[in-house]
């Protein structure tokens, strides 16, 4: 091989390798590393029974039921259309609050109760002063929307 041919082979080889690696990574994302469902999908029967998946939504206000003296916890995850009851045993993160986003990992039992083995409080990505937060909530019926438009907020 001449040096020129070598260089061409090298470049073609690198391009081929990188594109195959990229294609494989893309197929991985198409496979979806872990399934994510919201309560409406669960209610529609789209979620698998007895297979781990992630359930995401809001903690319904007034639904958190803590057994005194134990780590047993029950609450309801809602997307304001459908509800899914969740049972969990363990310590919850500090930002786990009513009316806050939550992601639960676990399995759906045949009784329709989602048994979680891990609870993640989803902190939203917005930073804002309390009065702005209040204003946005007022506009949306007391609930923080998923993606608030800050420019639409009146000066406080």
């Amino acid at each position, binding site marked *: *091989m001449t040096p020129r041919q*070598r260089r061409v082979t*090298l470049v073609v*080889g*690198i391009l*081929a*390798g*990188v594109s*195959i*690696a*990229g294609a*494989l*990574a893309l*197929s*991985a*994302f198409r*496979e*979806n*590393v872990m399934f994510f469902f919201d309560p409406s999908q669960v209610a529609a029967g789209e979620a698998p029974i007895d*297979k*781990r998946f992630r359930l995401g939504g809001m903690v319904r206000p007034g639904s958190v039921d803590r057994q005194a003296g134990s780590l047993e916890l029950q609450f309801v995850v809602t997307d304001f259309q459908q509800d899914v009851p969740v049972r969990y045993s363990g310590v919850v993160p500090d930002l786990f609050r009513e009316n806050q986003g939550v992601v639960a990992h676990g399995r759906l039992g045949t009784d329709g109760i989602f048994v979680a083995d891990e609870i993640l409080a989803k902190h939203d990505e917005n930073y804002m002063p309390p009065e702005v937060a209040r204003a946005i909530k007022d506009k949306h019926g007391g609930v923080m929307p998923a993606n608030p438009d800050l420019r639409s907020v009146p000066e406080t």
Partner: protein
Amino acid sequence: MSEGLHTQEVSRDTRLLPKCAAIVVRDLQLLVRRPGQMLQILGFFVVVTVLFPLGYSPELGKLRLIAPGVLWVGALLASLLALEGLFRDDAEDGTLEQWLLCGQPLAALLLAKTAVHWLLTGLPLTVLAPLLAVTLGVSIEAAPGILLALGLGTLALSLIGSIAAGLTLGLRRGGVLLSLLSLPLAVPVLIFGARATELVIQGDSPTAALYLLASLVVLAITLAPLAAAAAVRIGLE
């Protein structure tokens, strides 16, 4: 000797593949003469894995939960141990120098060398893993998934480690440095590999994690030999 002017008339086989084959044959011969190193590495893997039930808990239910981590950390440490000798012996007796002078692309030769190294260390580790997993309470049905995950993972580790092995060639404290340099680069392999193993053990589909592992392997095959070649050149100065 009755050759005439030997310069232009020499029939020289300039194909690359026979050279790679020669490397594979030679390393297999060397293994037959000295099987000690390979056995040491397998023994190390076994000891590390078996220490966990003793140091943690003999309950299979508990062990099953940490099995993916135990297997992967054991395999990672064993591969690092093996990588220390990847280029060292050849550099010390001067044979590696001749690889640089044979007129073939060094990266390709190193790829062959690393591949045979994986065959002699990574593959045995992989084969051993499902058996060790059974001692950690994992069902034997998980074996195919574990084999696939560890097979891909150890291959990626060998390739990535070949860069660090080249960079630390001939250095004092080379072994410690080798681990320090390889570990950050090995993090993605560890994450996807352990994830795939975990999913397999739980009885879920590990396809996505295996795709990501395969993607890392392909990327490593493409780029690691080039970096390793640069590293070895520098290491032999």
